[in-house]
């Protein structure tokens, strides 16, 4: 393998891993943005999405639907997984977070942590302790760019991730509901006075964030080929780090942060002793936050009125 091809291949690897982190980070950022809660259970939403994707995909495959209507069945798989996890998100918000809206943020954080443990163990009990194989639907076909191999699966996933992020950005910046979400995030009581239904807005956030996590879960399942009850934990932590790195609450920031974490991890492992890659990722995180305490794209906190 030539050096150039090697480099390109590693960059492809990094971009891919980065977009997975970015997708998961979006869920953290959205929920954080609106209720200032680190939703520890988000990693589990990701896992749940992956499981539902597996279940639906398996059923469709047995019916022979995947071969005959590939695109439609993909759509169904993603839609079902996202819908299910959106339900889950709303349910969790209602049970575990809504009663704590007026309590201290640490209480809510702990409630989220409890939910995370509960969900991951619930999935362990219901879906089994071992990893489950995803039907190979993405195929192994691909193209060669500058000597590096990019599979169609990777292209599909990165494109889908970017589409979701652009869509989300447009949604938040341009639509009425999106603006209502931002307004609620910035000043909840005032938003209520203007006629914005706060509960509904927060619920919407808990539909969108988890649904995005579910989409990421299905992608990860399809691409890597397996699902496991605890697979949300480590990507969850890294995606959370990515969200903070990019500036938590900022959608573009989540993408940038995810990419950066992916880059550092892959490129470090590619050229330097691979056991230190996670250490490096965290050191980069700390360094960036040291010099930019609100993250790379974090909204500059408006000059505090002392």
């Amino acid at each position, binding site marked *: *393998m030539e050096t150039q091809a090697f480099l390109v*291949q590693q960059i492809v690897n990094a971009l891919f*891993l980065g977009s997975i982190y970015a997708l998961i980070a979006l869920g953290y950022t959205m929920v954080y943005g609106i209720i200032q809660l680190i939703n520890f259970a988000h990693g589990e939403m990701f896992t749940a999405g992956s499981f539902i994707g597996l279940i639906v995909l398996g059923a469709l495959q047995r019916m022979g639907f995947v071969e005959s209507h590939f695109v439609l069945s993909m759509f169904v798989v993603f839609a079902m997984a996202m819908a299910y996890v959106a339900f889950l998100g709303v349910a969790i918000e209602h049970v575990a977070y809504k009663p704590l809206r007026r309590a201290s943020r640490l209480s809510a954080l702990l409630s989220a942590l409890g939910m995370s443990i509960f969900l991951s163990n619930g999935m362990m009990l219901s879906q089994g*302790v*071992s990893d489950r194989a995803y039907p190979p639907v993405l195929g192994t076909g691909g193209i060669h760019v500058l000597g590096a191999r990019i599979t169609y699966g990777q292209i599909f996933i990165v494109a889908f991730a970017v589409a979701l992020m652009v869509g989300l950005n447009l949604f938040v910046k341009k639509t009425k509901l999106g603006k209502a979400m931002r307004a609620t995030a910035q000043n909840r009581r005032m938003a209520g006075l203007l006629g914005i239904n706060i509960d509904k807005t927060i619920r919407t956030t808990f539909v969108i964030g988890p649904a995005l996590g579910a989409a990421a879960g299905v992608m990860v399942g399809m691409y890597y080929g*397996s699902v496991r009850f605890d697979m949300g*934990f*480590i*990507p969850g932590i890294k995606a959370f780090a990515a969200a903070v790195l990019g500036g938590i609450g900022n959608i573009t920031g989540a993408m940038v942060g995810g990419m950066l974490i992916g880059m550092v991890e892959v490129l470090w492992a590619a050229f330097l002793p*691979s056991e230190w890659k996670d250490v490096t990722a965290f050191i980069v995180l700390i360094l960036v936050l040291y010099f930019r305490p609100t993250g790379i794209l974090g909204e500059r906190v408006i000059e505090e009125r002392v």
Partner: protein
Amino acid sequence: MMRKLCVFAICLGLVFGLHTLAAAKTLKIGTLSPLTGPYAQDGTDILQGVKTAVALVEAAGGIPGFDKIEVLPGDSACDGGKATMAANKHINSGVHAVVGAYCSSATIPASVPLNEAKIIQITPASTHEDVTERGFKYLFRACPRDDAQAAAMVSFLENALKIKTLALIDDKQTYTVGLTKNIRHLVENHGKIKIVAHEHIAPGDKDFTAVLTKLKKIDPDAIYMSTYQPEGSLMARQAKALGLRAHLLSEDAVYHPKYIEVAGKAAEGSFLTFAKAPDTPERRNFEAEYKKMWGVKKIGSYAYYAFDAANIILGAVKIAKSTDPDKLEQVIRSTTWKGATGTIKFDHKGDRGASYIIWVVKNGEFVPYWNPQTGQYF
């Protein structure tokens, strides 16, 4: 609030006190294995293996002198502190012997109170040398050690596969690092093979393309994946997707039907070390019963070891006609046991002899391939 605390503490004390009242005339076997957390799969296999052994013995008439045999599960969670608590709990519930634990990092601390309380402990999975090197009298190991497994693999690489270059990957855990360390040691001593890379991944990761792409550039003849099964499956898939031509090698933690299920075609042709599967009645009997009892089609490797460990204990009680630990220890050490993983004869340290062979994945099955003891292909 002081008052609340007192009331609570007293209640808790009472509950604990009642909790530990001993029961009637039963033979009690405790298990220690991770029933929660990332290794819950193997931990559950161990528990089920022990339960299968007990079920078979009870079906065959039980053990004279005991009304029934009870299995007390203990969750070690692969954590030293929790494992000692579970071990102490077993001691206080009056278990006669313990099967466990799984992770060496749990077995080592848990064995201290167990050995002090003179309770027979057989670990079905902890392969680290330190487990038995400390010379604990009542501690046995039903699985071969890291060095034995490494020797089998190195012998295969040098004598059968005859490769020139080897890359090692481990995930920086006690078990996996123990193996790569031993392999590196042997290979470097023999000087026939060159180790061209030694990479590390993190457990729980899903993407290993960075490391694998690096190996693709180095292009070794074989890659030794010292990981657990989930990572092993994913790594095999990604290695094939990246177009690596190297042989994939791995060990008994990856020897699990799930490896083939998840890795699919990518698993084909990989070589794994695992204890020789003797086609004995004991093994067939176990497999049939296990599949029936737990409703599974395929059996995880640690279930076999756990089954044998439990059988050794039950057999020893039968022979010794007593649960006196010293007598049991004598019997276990002096008897040659026939089990689902072949014959077991413990040495003075409590280790069983080496009996690893090389398996290959062929048409979605593990198939015996080469025997390091004889140097013969199957």
